[in-house]
């Protein structure tokens, strides 16, 4: 693909007292599902608003399907479907009327949008509810209607801000399936943001981890773990003589830290030091009950980066 769906160069948004997005260089390829992950307040929504031309960058440039959101906002909004965080609809209008308004705002002719809306509503599974007032919809239904709404204009890029927030597990699975199906069927590029990595990592081709306005890591989920490991290893140990084990462990070169848990210790080391640990414990006659190298799940890395913020679901 010649033109990336999204590309930003040193994109920065500064408010009076803080920097929301700091020199962001982001590239999303045509046709991929990209997950923008980070804790609340990391600058994800600000980034999305700049991509849509709804917020002016302080410096740097963005390009969306080759168009500039600052100079060609209308052209960008014509090809980008956006489902905002906690999407809302006119409560007194039916779901269908809400979508028809969107179609008219895109200057589509009635003949073009009528069947399209019916099809889209069927695709998101709202056929039974679409002629009821949108005020009666549950959060999950609004989210699905939001996706249909964003697709009315037949976008080349779909941006979903926190699509999984406040949705029950069943609804979550439906929405993720829907996003996956959409990409397979129409080849639309998807950018989704979330602060809950484990919910969305399964459908993302690539993710970017975004903390305090900065992209700290970017790549396919698998590679990302390696990128973030920073050469360290985490080892679980359980022994029969806890009292003496501590000194023994700290004597091994390369051990950084020991977190003493209930039934095992978690050891941070520079490399995989399992052989050295076994040897040192054996020399002192301490029995080894459990020894395991922790596979760094992305969740753990994510937690390390975000601390408690990442876990407030």
């Amino acid at each position, binding site marked *: 693909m010649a033109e990336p769906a999204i590309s930003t160069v040193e994109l920065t948004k500064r408010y009076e007292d803080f920097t929301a997005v700091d020199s962001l260089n982001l590239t999303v390829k045509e046709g991929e599902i990209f997950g923008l992950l980070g804790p609340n307040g990391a600058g994800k*929504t600000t980034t999305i*608003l700049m991509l*849509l031309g*709804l*917020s002016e960058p302080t410096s740097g440039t963005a390009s969306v399907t080759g168009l500039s959101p600052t100079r060609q906002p*209308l*052209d960008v*909004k*014509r*090809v*980008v479907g*956006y*489902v*905002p*965080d*906690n*999407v*809302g*609809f*006119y*409560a*007194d209008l039916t779901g269908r009327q809400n979508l028809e*308004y*969107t179609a*008219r*705002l*895109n*200057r*589509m002719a009635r003949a*073009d*949008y009528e*069947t*399209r809306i019916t*099809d*889209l509503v*069927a*695709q*998101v*599974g709202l056929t039974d509810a679409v002629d009821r007032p949108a005020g009666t919809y549950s959060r999950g239904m609004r989210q699905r209607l*939001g996706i249909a*709404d964003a*697709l*009315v*204009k*037949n976008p080349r890029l779909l941006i979903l801000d926190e699509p999984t927030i406040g949705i029950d597990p069943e609804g979550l699975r*439906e929405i993720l*399936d*829907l996003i996956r*199906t959409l990409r397979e*069927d*129409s080849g639309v590029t998807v950018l989704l943001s979330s602060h809950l990595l484990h919910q969305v990592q399964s459908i993302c081709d690539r993710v970017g981890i975004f903390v305090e306005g900065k992209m700290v890591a970017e790549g396919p989920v698998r590679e990302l773990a390696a990128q973030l490991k920073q050469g360290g290893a985490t080892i679980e140990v359980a022994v029969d003589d806890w009292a003496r084990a501590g000194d023994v462990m700290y004597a091994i070169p390369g051990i950084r830290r020991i977190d003493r848990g209930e039934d095992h210790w978690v050891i941070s080391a520079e490399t995989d030091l399992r052989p050295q640990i076994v040897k040192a414990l054996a020399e002192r006659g301490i029995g080894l009950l459990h020894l395991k190298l922790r596979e760094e799940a992305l969740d753990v890395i994510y937690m390390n980066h975000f601390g408690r913020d990442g876990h407030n679901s």
Partner: protein
Amino acid sequence: MATTVSQAPLQPIRRLSGGWRVVAGKELTDHLISIRFFILIAIMGLSAIAAVYSAAGGIREASAAIDSDFPGLFLKLFTIQPESSRIPPFFALVALLGPLFGIAFGFDAVNGERSQGTLPRLLSQPIHRDDVINGKFVAGLSVIGLVLVLLTMIVAGVGIVRIGVTPSVSELIRIVGYVVVSIVYIGFWLALSSLFSVVLRKASTSALAAIAAWLVASLFALLFVGIVADIVSPVPDQPTIDEQIANAKTQRNLSFVFPQSLYQEATIALLEPEQRTFDILGLISLQNPQSGAIRGPLSLEQSLSIVWPQVTGLIALTVICFAGTYVAFMRQEVRA
């Protein structure tokens, strides 16, 4: 879930102008089927009918004494309050309830979109940001215009049937002028409440703020004008005529910042050609010796030349409010 979706043709960019029309169309439909519209139209319709019946009755009582060619008889339908009646005349009802109408269709223009969570979705469509404000303002003005024209026609219709007098051309022009001035006046309250709807995040707060502004301007305008005028142009115990005129002049100039006084002067000049309560200065400053000497009604041209400054003032106030709304909205972050 796996349904094939028909592909819509991508719209060429040149067709993307005029987004305000789509917004205005939707807003107008919303207004016309809204409960608040029904409430307001019921209140105003009923009071208009009551007012015109009362006025027509008063005119019939007096008509024996008045020559039916009396100029401006038809206009009396809009302005007269017979002594036996406690129902205020139509033009006073519009002056009283009109601002409420304007406020009702503006106070939640933008913060309503915010609280429903529809604003980001709306602004991510290929329309200019000002299309939202423009469309909403046009829709509000259209509803106001529609209601005023409707009510005026009811009053005129009832009047024609009840007193059997048809309006002359100059009376028709005066009535049209009155409707236009009223639309501008109510448009001012629409613009002011829209401004509050941008600046204040809660619809209830902006409604209260707009109503408070209306009450303050209505109740305290005269008081404020009097106090300031006495400071600027004091009137001693034994005032000379010049001092009194200076004080009156200051009062008059100050009252120009209040839409109510502008509107009141404009409607009186248009609908009551024989009324000269406010033109004491006009009388003195007018070089035409006739105008002061003859107690006859003002001609259409004279009335129009008198209302011109008031109308300009009203338009200016409305434009200032609208411009404020526009600027505030354009600078505002999409996110709450």
